[in-house]
């Protein structure tokens, strides 16, 4: 099972847990698995179709992944949802 780090605004859904385990072969499947345990999680992360909501970047094992929810994950993967940050 992969480990998902729950961002602060969503820890109310997980009873204050900062990390939870989830099953799936992609980030999207992890999110859907978590939504079953923590209803509302998917709505908070997923925007239109298979896209993350605006303003969120998906990090898998330390890399900001350009495929977002479609990125594959392994059993020992760590997944994070972080604010999108640009620059000047």
């Amino acid at each position: 099972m992969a480990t998902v780090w729950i961002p602060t605004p969503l820890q109310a859904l997980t009873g204050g847990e900062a990390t939870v385990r989830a099953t799936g072969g992609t980030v999207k499947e992890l999110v859907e698995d978590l939504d079953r345990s923590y209803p509302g999680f998917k709505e908070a992360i997923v925007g239109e179709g298979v896209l993350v909501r605006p303003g969120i970047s998906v990090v898998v094992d330390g890399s900001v992944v350009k495929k977002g929810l479609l990125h594959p994950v392994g059993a020992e993967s760590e997944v994070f949802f972080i604010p999108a940050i640009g620059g000047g």
Partner: protein
Amino acid sequence: MNKPEKLPHFRVVGTNPIRPDGLDKVTGRAVYGDDFKIAGMLHGKVLRSPHAHARIKSIDTRRAAKLPGVRAIITGADFPKPSVAMVPMGEGGYVDMNDTADNVIAKGKAFYDGHVIAAVAADNPHIAEEAVALIDVKYEVLPPVMDVRSAMAPGAAVLHETFNPGAFFMKTHKVLPNASRLELGAGDVARGFKEADVIVEREFTTETVHQGYIESHICTAQWDERGQVTIWTTTQGAFAIRDQVAIVCAVPMSHVRVVPLEIGGGFGGKDTAYIEPLAAMLAKKADRPVKVVMSRAESLRATGPSSGTFIRAKMGAKKDGTLVAADLSFAYEAGGFPGGPIAAGVLTSITRYNIPNVRLEGFDVLVNKPKVKPYRAPGATQSNFAVEQVMNQLAEKLGMDPVEFRIRNAMKTGDRLILGFPCPPVGGVEMLEAVKKHPHYKAPLGKNQGRGVAFSFWFGAGLTSSAELSVNSDGTVQMCTGSCDLSGTRLTLAMQAAEALGIDVEDVSPTIGDTHSVGYTLQSVGSRTTFATGIAVYEAAQKVLKEMAGRAALLWETDPANVAVDRGDFTDMNNPAHRFTFRELADKLEHSGGPVSAQSTVTPERVGFQLAAHLVDIEVDTETGKVDILRYTAFQDAGKAVHPDFVAGQIQGGVVQGLGWALNEEFWYDAKGRLCNASLLDYRMPIALDVPMIDVVILETPNPGHPFGVRGVGEVPIVPPAAAVANAIYDAIGVRMDALPMKPGRVLQKIKEQKSAAA
């Protein structure tokens, strides 16, 4: 400068070739926005709101239209409502196109002094200016809201009845009529402060500041018979301008061609469309090309500055110097539309230290000022000003050396960041050790002189970049990328191409493509060009080498697997007599399948973090409160400095701008919200006489996300100066500064308060 040693396996990277565009720029041959002229060109001028907050009751253009020589007039009514609400701008960042469109030209309400109301195209600039004065606008003037605290106060005038809280972070909500909020955290802050032996709690303010690029915004637009518009402009990102013009003007993206001209500074402020949609609409209406030139005053009044802020900071540490808790609240000005740098600002506030219990709160606050835009590490300078002063104060309470205190708590490779993920390779501890060992750190100081240190972090950006390489028969190479060159990047990219291809950098001819001639490339922002576009160049070079190796195999009638490629030499591993240099093989491409070129579009996923530590010595004139900079040493990790002199230049430039924030720069508004210092005489940026030689120490902890180890370098050097100067002022005269800029009057006031308290 302490230049890094050139690693033996690099031929080109790490050297300092002369920039190919330098002579043209200093002799006037380079074509900037104002140099561009086209036959039949009209001149556009813009009518701007004199009110910071006003409802537009009516706009009467009839008198202006009758003026001989006027060819077109546009108002907000000429622009359609954008068909696309939110547009991705890279790394999950989104821009609300309705806000962008309303910022380009007001529709119903003016949100700041200088907001565009209408625009005129005429035969010459004088007629256009006269016509602008003949446009009759009736306003219902509304009370302005000019700072974050008054905007968040009960009863404040409301800018937008409804607004999209912006692209910050998930469940970010509108929490006040003029503000939305973000909160991040880790651990248990209350418990953390209970464990703390020393706690420092303070409040800070910073003022609105502008990027101050020397060249203002200038563009020219022309339509062709097919309904395609070409825009020549000064910008940090041709594709960003293209996308915004297409959406704001309701034109297919394929029908907008943006040609980036040379750019006279940007620093984050030139990644968005201001006058380009106006020029396009005027040109369409007049059926003539139209040039629009923003004056200095217009640029300062109406283009995106960086946020003024109000900050509350509380941090605690144990006796052994371990940080245990931080509770930080930041209110950033967004300007007239949502979307300030709160995510970046709050996260960079502490990301460089390990703190187990953290609460970070950010407010994005609407005020009647121009929509804020990135300015070199957006949001970080403000939060650093607060946190690095609190760090020094904690160190003092603990009786620890301030650098040693930072080393004790510095984030190391593999440590968990506040968002949970492990820190990629960084050299923060090594940098702080270098600070301690540097002669500057122990140099003697005189009366009223002090030394300050600050340590800083910036994420950097990856984003999409494209590059194309074409091999000529004489062995030279054309290189075209989509990255606008703000700082010499056409050379640093050519150097990476030369390194990868194994040829001399003089044999690579770099050009910057327009949106019809090169693959999609996001803006030159986020310190990303040498890093991300460098990867695109590297990938394209690998494709070129692979194709050329295949051609060598054809010519030698062997399998491509038998061809070895090393530093531009192609050899047949089964026949030592078979050998081509890059140049020799290039000459044979035409007859072995045709010329070779390769394209690459990349979106790098492993961005190297940027760290910087600055040391500054200052002297305070206690009679006037004036602060002079005596000595400055900037330490920065470049990963791998592709062109060390350019890296030093970026650092020195960032320091100078940071010193402007520290000592002088601020927007001055009157009670009605009108900008009073819209000139570079009154908006006081540092000049050469204000700063000493800035020493640079480049460190190199390679970024594994880049084939040569490159990190971005352009943004983080603006972050530490304000905090470092504040710490130096305390060291010199014992007063704690809590507001930017630390101008003479403010320092003098602190000295008076100090004397009163002593009495």
